[in-house]
Every structure is written in structure tokens, then in C-alpha cells.
């Protein structure tokens, strides 16, 4: 099988079955994974921060603009809005005892993504979010399954 395409921070990708997408080493970042089971179109965006500023440099970097752009790209690639389902991975708090601003930005990322998805609305069918561990997420667009790998923990398929 072909190696999964890696979606880096702030990047956004859409693929067709049987291609695979992945986000490696998600800490407070969130991978928003969308899938249309009928046309088997999958998409992933790797967001870093919750809210986009006035002047957006990279739409994929922010939870609100990134989610909206991904939905748009999905529909341009043959997915239908009312069929799309969402899965979320990431949003951890890596340094629990750190007393600085943004210490729990992961949680805000997750909240902002949920809010953006509600606008359409797109249903969230599975989540592996928050906590204090990093994750890697892999999407298999032939089945829509998302594999979540964590360090020192069993792999989860959802």
C-alpha cells in the first residue's frame, strides 16, 4: 500500500479512495477529519490555534477558518454536505503544570472546531481528544476508518 500523505501544521488535504492521509505528532493541535461514505472522499486539516485573526495568513492554521475551508474543498471534490461525517483527534494539554498563557489551548481548539462544524451542521461521530498525550491520526479513505496512535497506549481504530 502507498504511504499515507502527511498533512503538516496549517495544511489541508482532500483525497479519494483508496488514498490515505495522516497527521503526525498532534499535541494541542487538532486534526479535523471529514468523510463522505458514499463518494468515499476524505479530508483532513491540521489546525494549531482556535480563532483566526482579522488578517488570515494560512486558513488551515486556525480551527474556525480551517474547518470551513475543508468543508468547501470536500464539496468541490464530490462530497455532499449532508452526508459528511466528522472525526476529531488531538487537542491535548502537553504540559499540565505549566503556568503560562495558552497552557490549555488544545481544549479551545476542540471547542472551536465543534462550533464551526455545528454551523453546517456536520455530525461528529467519533472523537479522541484532550487528555495529556500526543497522538498521530491516519485516515483510510477506502473505509473511512481513522487509526489513532498514542505513545505507550494501544492503537485505537474509530
Amino acid at each position, binding site marked *: 500500500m502507498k504511504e499515507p500523505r502527511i498533512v*503538516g*501544521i496549517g495544511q489541508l488535504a482532500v483525497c479519494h479512495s483508496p488514498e490515505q492521509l495522516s497527521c*503526525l*505528532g*498532534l*499535541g*494541542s*493541535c487538532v486534526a479535523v477529519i471529514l468523510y463522505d461514505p458514499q463518494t468515499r472522499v476524505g479530508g483532513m486539516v491540521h489546525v*494549531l*490555534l482556535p480563532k483566526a*485573526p482579522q488578517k488570515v495568513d494560512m486558513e488551515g*492554521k486556525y480551527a474556525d477558518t480551517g474547518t470551513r475551508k475543508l468543508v468547501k474543498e470536500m464539496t468541490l471534490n464530490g462530497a455532499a454536505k449532508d452526508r459528511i461525517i466528522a472525526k476529531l483527534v488531538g487537542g*491535548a494539554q*502537553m*504540559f*499540565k*503544570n*505549566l*503556568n*503560562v*498563557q*495558552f497552557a490549555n*489551548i488544545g481544549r479551545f481548539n476542540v471547542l472551536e472546531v465543534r462550533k464551526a462544524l455545528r454551523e453546517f451542521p456536520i455530525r461528529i461521530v467519533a472523537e479522541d481528544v484532550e487528555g*495529556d*498525550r*500526543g*497522538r*498521530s491520526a491516519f485516515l483510510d479513505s477506502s473505509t473511512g476508518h481513522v487509526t489513532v496512535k498514542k*505513545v*505507550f497506549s494501544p492503537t485505537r481504530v474509530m
Partner: protein
Amino acid sequence: MAEENPGRALEIIKEFANIGAGSAATALGTMLDVDLMNDVTSCNIMPLSQVPEWLGGAEKIVAGTYTQLCGSLKSGILVILPSESAILLLKHLTKEQVDLSNLNELQRSCLKEVGNICLCWYLIAVSKMVDIDMIPAPPDATVDLLGAVLDMPLAALGAKVDTVLAVHTCFKALDKEFEGYFLMLPEDQTLKIILDRMESKR
């Protein structure tokens, strides 16, 4: 300045890195009660996006200690120990078997302390050189995927930081070698202040 004269800036950073890492090695050696020699094997100024690759991939397992400076200078500081180095250090300090997946309270605290000492002594040396106080917030440590550890400074400073002063150092002691990485992530304005100060002190 980093843009105007990258060669010159790199030279300054190298000096800075050597002294910082040397100071950290001395402190760490005292803590471990061994003679610790260190070599700065490489030193780079790079964009944040290249850091995972430089350190061996986003999925590599590392021990990371992170904090930020308080006060007028704005910078994140991250000490990264590859998992083998972290195990070696913890074994020596606690005289116990170490399983990174299941650290006990003492080992977790040890790890934090090792990171804390490296980080603070690095800062002490650097702040003496530039003659500006650098006070870090209390740090925190974790063992996880490199990419996930790097998310924290990225998110906290991400919008404003793109330059990382990265130092790879190799410590020799206990008949063994282990590696550590110091990453300093200053905001542009802070980087400029540091480089200007270094320049005028020479």
C-alpha cells in the same frame, strides 16, 4: 540582523550556544556527581517548521521540558532529550530500572529537575553574556511524540515566532555518551535585542 547577515549572526549564536551548553553541562555534572564533558556538535538557526526533521522526525519519542521567559524578553525555551538519553540519566539518578511508559513520581520529578537545571544554567550563562535578566517561569516536563511536544511552543508563540536557535550537544560521562538539544524560540524583537547586545559586547 539575522536576515542581513546570517553568517555573522550564526557565529554569535554559536558562541552563545557553546557557553550556554557548557554551563548546563557543569550544573548537570554536579547534580549527577560525575565529570561531564560536553561538545556542541551543531548549532543552527532554522524556521520552526524544520525542527522536527532536524531532531529525527515528528514521531520520535522524546523527553521535553518547556518554559517561557517572564518579563520584557519574550522567548520559549525547550530542552529535548532523546528517549535513550533520558533513560540513561534517570537510571543513574534514581538507581532504578526505568520504563518511560510508566514513570513513577520520583522519576518524573527527576526528569523535570534535569530539564530545569539544564534550562536555568543555560539561561544564566546567556543572560550574563548579554547583560539582560532572563527569568523563566517554572517549567514542566513530559515524555511524548516530538511533534506533540513542539506543539506547545508553536501554539503559545506560533503567530510571532519563526526562528529557532537550535543547539545539539553531546555529553560524555558515565563511560557513555548522551545527547541533548536546547531550543530557544525568541520572538523577533527579542532575537534582535540579543544579537545587538552580543554584537556590542565583542
